[in-house]
């Protein structure tokens, strides 16, 4: 390693995860190429381009020191909250719901930014919280407010998937921060009670239908159950080796809805079969393993929680999307990281990757030397 002529700054990058990620993104590009009917436009080329742009961004992010992250946590959080309110306001004025801001060169979904931001701010919060207070209400209540505010704003949009992602990221950090186990058990019990109530009051009709349809997709094969049914057909008909590149009838003949975004995994599995599916799962496993290892070896509470929280956010994306396309979860609009076509989600997951890389760098610097 030391004898390599590769510059140190490049050699120090976590290639063990970047290379699998690149392969996954390339597979994603291949799928998008096929989904576009054998064309680089409009999906595949921009997918690759975005990945490399955001990879560069992640490397830049990873160069910042830990104290910069800590300093920026609250201002960033406040900024994203402001953006969420702005989106709400624009939506209210425009007479309809809106999730994104048009920045000219891209459309930005503030709710996407909130996913890594909530991890960052909670990590900073627990870093500053005296360890002794972790088990008291002062370790819980501020964190609940920090999670609850953006989650509520996102629910207003309404965007159940992102709200759940925010809550999930927050919950994982609180859990890892060492909050008493009994609280989680209690919250779990409360959730069991509250879910039916929330189901009938908080959710919108279409969301309710999606849940109901998930429970019995064949009840409405042409309505909301159509998505799940067609996705299962695509995955199931792929078999072990798949139908071959460019031969997916479900996606090419437009039976599969959202074949290039939320249901990209089904598009992939139809053409690449179980082999492709296992490869995707292995890459995610590698990312998760890397993220959690980085967290374990991190030097302080902030970086531990940051790395673990970012890993959990990526995990949440991937897991919910895959559970959905395989018919194990209701249809929620969550894209598959590194594969789905879409700028905002790519940016979010690459911020997460960048943050984990930063933590890894901090560990390398301080770990063996300190």
């Amino acid at each position, binding site marked *: 390693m030391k004898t390599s002529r590769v510059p140190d700054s490049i050699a120090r990058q976590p290639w063990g995860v970047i290379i699998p990620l690149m392969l996954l993104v390339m597979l994603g590009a291949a799928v998008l190429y096929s989904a576009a009917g054998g064309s680089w436009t409009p999906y595949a080329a921009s997918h690759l381009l975005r990945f490399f742009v955001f990879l560069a961004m992640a490397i830049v992010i990873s160069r910042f020191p830990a104290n910069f992250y800590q300093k920026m946590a609250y201002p960033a959080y406040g900024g994203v909250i402001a953006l969420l309110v702005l989106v709400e306001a624009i939506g209210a004025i425009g007479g309809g719901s809106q999730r994104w801001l048009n920045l000219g060169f891209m459309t930005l979904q503030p709710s996407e930014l909130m996913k890594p931001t909530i991890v960052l701010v909670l990590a900073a919060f627990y870093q500053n919280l005296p360890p002794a207070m972790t*088990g008291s209400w002062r370790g819980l209540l501020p964190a609940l407010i920090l999670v609850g505010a953006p989650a509520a704003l996102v629910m207003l949009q309404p965007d159940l998937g992102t709200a759940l992602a925010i809550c999930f990221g927050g919950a994982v950090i609180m859990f*890892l921060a060492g909050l008493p186990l009994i609280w989680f058990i209690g919250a779990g019990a409360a959730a069991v009670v509250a879910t039916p109530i929330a189901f009938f009051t908080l959710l919108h009709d279409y969301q309710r239908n999606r849940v109901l349809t998930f429970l019995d997709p064949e009840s409405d094969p042409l309505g909301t159950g159509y998505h799940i049914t067609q996705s299962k057909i695509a995955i199931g008909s792929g078999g072990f080796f798949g139908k071959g590149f460019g031969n997916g*009838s479900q996606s090419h003949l437009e039976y599969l809805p959202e074949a290039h975004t939320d249901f990209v995994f089904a598009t992939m599995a139809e053409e690449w079969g179980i082999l492709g599916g296992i490869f995707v*799962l292995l890459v995610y496993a590698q990312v998760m393993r890397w993220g959690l290892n980085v967290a374990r070896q991190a030097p302080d509470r902030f970086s531990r929680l940051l790395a673990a929280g970012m890993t959990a956010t990526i995990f949440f994306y991937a897991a919910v999307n*895959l559970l959905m396309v395989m018919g194990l979860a209701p249809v929620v609009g969550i894209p598959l990281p590194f594969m789905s076509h879409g700028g905002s989600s790519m940016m979010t997951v690459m911020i997460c990757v960048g943050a984990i890389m930063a933590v890894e760098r901090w560990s390398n610097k301080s770990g063996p030397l300190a």
Partner: protein
Amino acid sequence: MKLGKRTASSAMLQNSFDRRATVVGAIQGGVGILLAGRLTWLAVAQNEKYQLLAESNRVNLSLIPPRRGWILDRNGLPLASNKADFRVDVIPDRLGDEKKTIATLTELLDLDDVKVRDLTDKLDKARGFAPVEVASGLDWDRFAAVSVRLPDLPGVVTQRGFSRFYPTGPCVGHLIGYVGAASREEWEAEGKKPLLITPGFKIGKDGLEKSFDLELRGEPGARRVEVTSSGKIVRDLDTRDDVPGKPVKLTIDGRLQDYASRRIGLESAAVVVIDCKTGGILTLASMPSFDPNSFADGIGRIEWKMLNDDDHIPLLNKAVRGLYPPGSTMKPMASLALQLAGVDPEERVSCPGGYRLGSRFFRCDAVHGSVDMRTAIEKSCNTYYWSMSHRVGYDAIAPIARLLGLGQEYDLPGTNQRYGTIPDAAWKMKKFGQEWSAADSLNASIGQGYVLASPLQLAVMTSRIASGKDLQPTMLFDKLGKPAPDLPFTPEQLQVVHDGMFRVVNGAGTAGRSRIDINGIKMAGKTGTAQVQTMVSRGIHGDWKSRDHALFVCYAPADNPLYAMAVVVEHGTFGARAAAPIAKDVMTYLFDPETALETLHSLESQWGGTAQQRLDRKYAAYSAQYGANGPEVTGTEAVEDDTKNETEERPVESVSVEEPEEKASPSPEPPAPRATPSAAAGNTPAQAGPAPASSPSPAPTASPVPPGVGPAPRP
């Protein structure tokens, strides 16, 4: 406190983090394994199921309507065939914006107001799933214009297929029937077969098309195409050809059928020709008719109005469903019956111009003097038959009438016959609750009174008399061949009748003007005139509807009968005047087609073209007159008249009498059934079997016009 102690130090937190991170990692791993398991389950264990589903998504199987079997005449000429066709249908269920789609189609296909109106009518009545024809017989340009716009026209189906074609159009309308799209009832009756609602598929709706529908149908082909979820066809995968339906070969001679139909001209008439050797029906013509070609896509308003306005009732097959008093055409039959009952044909009866029965006097057409049986046929002398049948009794005649085919129904698929009446005492008692009277016998013996027969029956009767064999009329070529048994008449008895009929045409008989002589081939026949309204008007006077029906039965060659024929001209006045000339030309066509065609062409130039041309012109005139505002078509089965299931003996509606005709009573009092069609104006025709309060006054006051079939009307 307890919790506080536990989480008191940073080291403890580190410890807790490690443990909990392991839990999180384990959960993540668990989810990963769950996903891998689910993936394997879907793609391996259930692979077959989902492959099938994906295939059924991808592949759309569409049926190709089979080509319908041809209907052939005895020489193999098609009476019904198929022609390649570009067609456009709409499926109402899948229509998006109906108005917009129709507007687009109207523009693309250049539909006129009448067609648009008919289309909206059909769509209003449509049942959603069943295709409605917009246009067929399109040229390639218009077909292509619609085809390329299909993605913007949901519910519109273009198809390249075959449609039914009847080369001679109206000439075979009644004989063959017609086809049409299956109705909901028909679709359900066949277990909702998808073929029945395939665009372009037609089933037989009437006549032979209906009777032989299953044979003619064939097996549908199929086309597998790859389609997108929105139904757009990506490419053809493979095609299985249809199996055309089996042809049905008829005994009909297509050219003769065509000739006879056209020769009827402007009359409302039926012509039936039967092969005297086999009983095969050569012609079963009823005119005017409808054009079955234009019925295949449903009946339009204009057409409906045109057919219903016509007092010649083009929707009625008069050859098998028109019932007429046979009149004097019964006399050859009666002659056989009399001989069988022991009457010597040489015995002479004196005709003083009528016959006295008790206190009543039945008038004959003329004073014929002394007549034997042959002369009685030749001159159509009623007196002879009255006196002879009075002697032998009517009960000796009725069975022979039935034996010769009157009042019988024949095994003829697709004809829906009515079998008329050969009355007898039991029948009258059942029908009217009255005793059979001697006057009834007299009436019946000359084919009047309650007697009703269809042109088909008259032709069968003639063929049996001509051949002396019990010929069974047949329309299917394959059924021919079995020799018919002899009838219980001696050759001598038959010869008497043949002589009489020969003299009708070739002697001093009633049809002398219709004789033919083609290389020695001569025709024998018998005229008949059936009264429509008693004495309101006679002969050629009065309006068309109250004129008498003209009948003529004949066979040729006279010495070796090959063909027997019956011609009935509704309201044609006298048999010799209206019916015999048609019979003469049709018979001529059989032996000398060129001469016959010359005659026809000169006649058609007077009439204004062939039947098809006249029908087309009439349609155009109606269309111009009424535009899109014809009355709505009532009922989809427009062609089937309302008497569909009626097999009772009732005169057809065109005949303005409602009941079997009563002969005029000489007395002004109502209803004494009288045998002679003599005077007595003011006699109402509508009495159904009234109390025979026969008038004692014997002699009728002179009738202004000589009635009946006698030679008198000949100018």
